[in-house]
Structures are given as structure tokens and as C-alpha cells.
């Protein structure tokens, strides 16, 4: 699990182009949107693509992301349960 969290942090930094940020700067329990990292709806769409591409998880609409992207830990737990690759 911790390994998946680390991997996810690296992928998030890369795909969202969070320049100058390191994995340890992201608190896996902090909210990704609004407060915390301050991401927005387009970032959520990028994360949806990330889940499909890297873990084979396909979300049907953007609203499902709201629950899953609460924090990196929640996201990692969801991926662990639903991943197809």
C-alpha cells in the first residue's frame, strides 16, 4: 500500500506538471482538491486518464471522481481494489 502511495504521488506530480514538487511534499491524507494541493476540475479529468492508462480503471462520469480523489490514500485504496493492470 505504502509503495502504491509513493508511486501515485510520483505519477500525480508528473501528469499534473506540479513543477518543483517532490513526493514527500504531498500529504497522502490531505484533500487533493480545494484546500490541500488546490487542484481543479481539469486536474480531476487528468487523474481519471491516469487511472485508466496506468491501472485499467475506467470511470463513466466525472462525478465518480469526487469520492475517489479525496486524498492520495483514498485513491490508492480504490486503485488497489479495482485495478485491472
Amino acid at each position, binding site marked *: 500500500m505504502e509503495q502504491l502511495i509513493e508511486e501515485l504521488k510520483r505519477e500525480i506530480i508528473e501528469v499534473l506538471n506540479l513543477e518543483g514538487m517532490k513526493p514527500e511534499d504531498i500529504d497522502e491524507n490531505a484533500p487533493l482538491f480545494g484546500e490541500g494541493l*488546490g487542484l481543479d476540475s481539469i486536474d480531476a479529468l487528468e487523474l481519471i486518464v491516469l487511472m485508466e*492508462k496506468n491501472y485499467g480503471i475506467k470511470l463513466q462520469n466525472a462525478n465518480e471522481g469526487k469520492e475517489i480523489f479525496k486524498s492520495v490514500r483514498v485513491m490508492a485504496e480504490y486503485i488497489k481494489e479495482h485495478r485491472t493492470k
Partner: protein
Amino acid sequence: MDIFIRSASQISFQQPLDMQWLTAPIFPSVAFNPPLEPDYKQFVSPVESRRMGHLLKRAVAVSLDALRKGDCSMPDAVISGTGLGCIENTEKFLNAVIDNEEECLPPTPFMQSTHNTVSSQIALKLQCHGYNSTYSHRGTSFDSALLDAVIQIQLGQIGSALVGGYDEMTPAYFRMLNKLGYWRTDEASDVDSLQKSGRVGSISGSSAVSLLLTSSPSSEKLCQLYGIEAFSCFEKNQLPAIYHDFLLKYGIVEADIDAVMCGFSGDDSNDEMYRYFVAECCPQSDVLWYKHLFGESFCASAFGVYAAACCLHQQKVPTHLYYMKERKRDKIRKILVFNCFQNIDGSLILLSL
């Protein structure tokens, strides 16, 4: 109604955000000339800029810099010209569509690929809710944007506008245009060979120029925008009539035109119209050029207006702006910028002290 260019800023292969090109120009030696990038952190935070491609960063930087130089916090309008839009992002998305067979595509390059991304990013950064438009019409994209700003000022819709010309040249697009004979070989990209007739191709540049236009006079300004006319689908021999109508409309005579700033690029099919114009219309005026310092791009004409405005403000034209090094006039009070794209679309823009 009087209209002024209060301030301006540029990013090109000259020193960025600066007028050093007047005294310490950088002359090209190759055909592909990427711009010199300033430090963007002074304009946008890393979080803000994480989705911005190069063109957007440049556009926001020159816009903010022009506003700062013009001591203006909020323009009434943002109007941009861009021939290709954010082509870097367009290519990124296009490649993803082809490579991934339309699956798993990233939204960011698509949403940042549309041409109006530039004007809207500037508005977003400034929180400017005013008039906002984008022109994408080949070599007169910038000229169209400037014309729109003048029209809106004349109609009393706005009192000020940020008007810009923005285009980026990517290696892939350069290669494509090269097949059509757009570019010089590196060996023939020096300033001397660009002035020789009978050659084809020019050197490429990327453009980011922003001008702050105001209808209220201020002590600090670059120059007055005295007149503008844009025209299309004309024959070469119609040009003198277009020119004389222009002079008549703005109540000036030929002798008032101290210098004409032309878009000579080194490509004979392009330069022929400028040679004809100079010979037929303003043989007594000094002839200036700018594409040897800023390169050819759809929005290159923005540099013509910018360079003319800087010269009027400085009350001095540096030697390296004289085409064929020939100088006839002592004082420069009015410069006419003539832009012509592929003998189809053209504009006359008159700047005055």
C-alpha cells in the same frame, strides 16, 4: 479621436522584455530561431503555469509587462492576433489522438490548444471582464486585432486595450513549412543574404508582442496611432490608389511619411510587393525593416508596429533598421508600417510622434 500606444513589451530572439535590440541587436545566423525566455516566475506562479505551454507564458508575461510599463492595472479590452494558436499543444493532442487511437487522451493539451486560449488566459490572469477577442487570419492576424481595438475605441465601447500578436514556431511545424519553401538554409540566413534579391525563403521567429492602446493622452507614451487601414484581394497596381486614399483619409501628404517600415523577409515573392510600394508610393521616405531581427511568423507584423513605436519614442532609428543601409531623413516624426501577406491581405498603419 486620438489613440496612443502607451507602452509595449516583446519576447523574441532578442533580449526579452527589453529594448536592447535597438542598441545591441542579436543577428540571426540560422533559419530556426527559438526565442530567449525570461524568468516567468515573476509573472506566474508554478501552480498557475503548470498547464501553460510556452506561448501562453510568453503572452501573459508581455501583457503584464506592457501594463506595468504603461502604469495601467486593468485594460478595457484584450484583443489578440494568432495565426496558429497554441500549436505546441495542438501538436501534442494531435499526436496523442493518432498514437493512442483516440483512447486515454489527456484533456489539458486540448483545452489549451484553441486559438482564444491566449486572450482568455490574459483576461483570467487580470480578471478582466471586458471585450475579449482573437483574430486568426494568417499574416494579418495582429493587424486585424489592432483594427478591432481602434474600431471599438472609435465607437466609444472601450477606452483602452491590450493588443497582442502571438505565434510560436515548433520544430515539426517548421519542418512542414520548410517543404513548402518557407525557409532559408542556415548558410543563407545572415542579414546580408536576406537583403539580396532573387532568393526564396526567410528565417523563422516566434512572436509575443503586447501593446497597450489608450484613448487618453498621458505624459508617458510611445507614440500616437494615427491611422490604420486593412485591405484584401488587391492587385499590385491597385496599391498606389489604396495608399493615396489612406493619405487623404488621414489628411496627410506623401512628404509627411518620414519612413516606411516594411516586412521584407528575404523571400522574393514576398519582398517584391514591398519594393514596388517603396518605388511607387514613397520614394522619398526612408525604408526600414524588422524581420531580420524578429524573424518571420504569422504575427510578425506586430514587431513592425512595435519597432516603429520604439523608434518614435527614442527619436532615433538605429542604423541596423535601415534596409540597404540607406538614410535620407534627419528627423523621424511619422512612420508608416506596411504589411503585406502573400499579396492577398495587407495593412497600412501610421504611427506619429
